[in-house]
């Protein structure tokens, strides 16, 4: 990870160690003196929030796994045992279950920020694609985690989603058999989902490390969407962004706590407090809220195979986004026409989420199709064309100018603060 590597440890042991493994220097250059654009707004704090959520999920998950039994006869009751008999088990479990939702809240804000400010554009394409991979891994992890309590929604959600793979020609049935570990969702399925649910977060952790590495090559994008050029454009990561991230994180954890302690089952489904029963199908099989837009896209397409392809395509298309958006201007702040389509895209995604929770009948199906069409049109039609025809606003010459205006950009304040970060307070 880039940054000035002029770090000299204070202690003799530190210097001895640093010559052998320069890890403190790496941390120092990446998270202490790393020059960040000074104009980052609070949407840029969600990266840190996501890192916190990943660690939080791993910690609560590891302890939950100490008490959980991955067996179809024991799983449901072992989760209830955690709620009743394990010290603070209710807290661990509610933190973990709501933590998954919070993780997705944060990742959707994070992705939305990237879409708005053009964070996917050159030179951050690899950074963006790594993010898409993390998102996919998160979805797989969350899906398998929801199966573990072995409630009715766990079982039937697993049945519906794994069955999707059977639509793939030729290999479909084989894939489904491997996912199930047999010929129906059962004990083998639960066991392998538990194994994978424990494995995938560490894979996420690995890709997150690459994501941060790729981030630190060009550095963060920023609301002005222009690259940092001089010291006047930046502030050191510490203390400016550590304190800002810390404040945002605590606010986010308040939101998280509200759900965990006061409305822990708000985002869940009552049917998942009924033990899985292969003989009884629930009236409506609904995935967790964060999957609903993709579920709506799946059901919008009348053909099963095409529906599955549309659903996976709706995420896969993000990989190509850096080349689909033809605009020379990166930030939505200077693209008035883009902004209209962007907010329509966000509203469209939310309507898709609402439709995903509705039964696939009548007007809901028609609405799902229209929304699915807009979802893909945004990437395939609007962004490629808009970049060629829209009239953008003038982009500031530098980040400093974006903050201070043309007159103030000559000031050396930011640079002065950068050279003496500990001079006050």
């Amino acid at each position, binding site marked *: 990870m880039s940054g000035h590597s002029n770090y000299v440890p204070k202690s003799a042991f530190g210097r001895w160690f640093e010559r052998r493994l320069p890890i403190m220097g790496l941390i120092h250059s990446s998270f202490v003196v790393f020059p960040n654009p000074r104009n980052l707004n609070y949407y840029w704090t969600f990266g840190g929030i996501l890192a916190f959520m990943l660690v939080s999920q791993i910690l609560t998950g590891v302890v939950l796994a100490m008490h959980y039994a991955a067996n179809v006869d024991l799983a449901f009751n072992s989760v209830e045992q955690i709620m009743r008999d394990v010290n603070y088990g209710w807290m661990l479990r509610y933190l973990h279950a709501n933590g998954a939702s919070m993780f997705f809240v944060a990742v959707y804000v994070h992705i939305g920020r990237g879409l708005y400010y053009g964070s996917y554009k050159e030179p951050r394409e690899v950074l963006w694609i790594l993010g898409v991979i993390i998102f996919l891994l998160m979805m797989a992890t969350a899906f398998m985690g929801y199966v573990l309590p072995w409630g009715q929604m766990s079982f039937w959600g697993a049945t519906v989603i794994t069955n999707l793979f059977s639509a793939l020609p030729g290999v479909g049935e084989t894939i489904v058999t491997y996912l199930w570990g047999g010929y129906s969702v059962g004990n083998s399925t639960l066991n392998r989902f538990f194994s994978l649910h424990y494995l995938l977060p560490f894979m996420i952790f690995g890709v997150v490390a690459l994501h941060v590495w790729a981030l630190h090559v060009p550095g963060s994008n920023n609301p002005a969407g222009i690259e940092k050029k001089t010291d006047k454009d930046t502030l050191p990561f510490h203390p400016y962004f550590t304190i800002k991230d810390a*404040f945002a994180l605590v606010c986010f954890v308040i939101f998280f706590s509200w759900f965990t302690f006061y409305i822990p*089952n708000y985002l869940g489904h*009552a049917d998942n407090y009924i033990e899985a029963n292969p003989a009884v199908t629930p009236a409506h099989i609904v995935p967790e809220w964060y999957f609903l837009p993709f579920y709506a896209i799946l059901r919008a397409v009348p053909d099963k195979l095409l529906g599955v392809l549309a659903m996976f395509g709706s995420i896969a298309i993000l990989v190509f986004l850096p080349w689909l958006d033809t605009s020379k201007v990166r930030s939505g702040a200077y693209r008035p026409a883009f902004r209209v389509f962007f907010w329509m895209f966000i509203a469209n995604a939310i309507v898709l989420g609402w439709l995903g929770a509705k039964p696939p009948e009548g007007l809901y199906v028609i609405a799902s199709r229209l929304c699915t069409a807009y979802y893909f049109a945004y990437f395939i039609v609007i962004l490629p064309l808009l970049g060629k025809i829209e009239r953008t606003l003038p982009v500031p010459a530098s980040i400093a100018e974006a903050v*201070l205006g043309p007159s103030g950009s000559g000031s050396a304040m930011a640079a002065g603060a950068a050279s003496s970060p500990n001079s006050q307070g």
Partner: protein
Amino acid sequence: MKRFKVIAAAILVSGFMGGAVLADGGHDTPLPPKNDWTFAGPFGTFDKTQLQRGFKVYREVCSSCHSMGLVSFRNLAQPGGPGFTEGQVKALAASYKVKDGPNDAGEMFERDGRAADRWPSPFPNKQAAAAANGGAIPPDFSVIAKARSYSRGFPLFLVDMFTQYQEHGVDYITALLQGYSDDTHGVEVPAGKYYNTFYPGNVIAMPKPLNDGQVEYPKGADGRPQAPETVAQYSKDVSAFLMWAAEPKLEQRKETGFRVILFLIVLAGLFYFTKKKIWSRVEGHH
């Protein structure tokens, strides 16, 4: 403009998350009326006397068909519950016979219940439960208050996020227990089934379980029952008891939550002013 955007984003996100709650609409039964529950809201606690009355209703009426396999006798004496004494719980447990074994001779035997025993099931297995109830297995009551719900619809489900309305299950159960009527409103009810206003589809396998005066409530100082011995009161009391059975750590959760959130708000304040101070060094920021 900036503030407007943040608010708009918040509304959009909350609408999105709430979508899941909309999932199970679509039946034409009326919405269960909302009750005042002592355990609702951020400072909610169970009313011990209500839980004790509800337990009495469960024990004398419901428990003849409905098991409660995740609840042990000892739970009845735990903090945040009905508040029975350990002596009461031991005596209660001892009044039940529990099958244990095998002993050293390899034989199963019956013994008096202990506080650590789970609540005994009315039927030895699911098949017996189904056979005794016209093919329908009476559901276990351990988490039923969380396993039942109803859709509040848009926009109420969004409001619930802020008002902390989480009592869908108990309100539904309370309504269901009072929802029996001889007038089937044109719904065809097969023999051995019953009409219920609040049950999805209106045809339920359970006969009307509660009648006025069926369960005797403890008497107050004036010699009158501490609560009315009516179906309406029985329904509320047993629902409250079922909420406790489903969420025995509810009081601890809400108490802890208040302390956690209070701490976090103070911490957020400290971070906010620290951030302001640090950023005041650089021009163009505040």
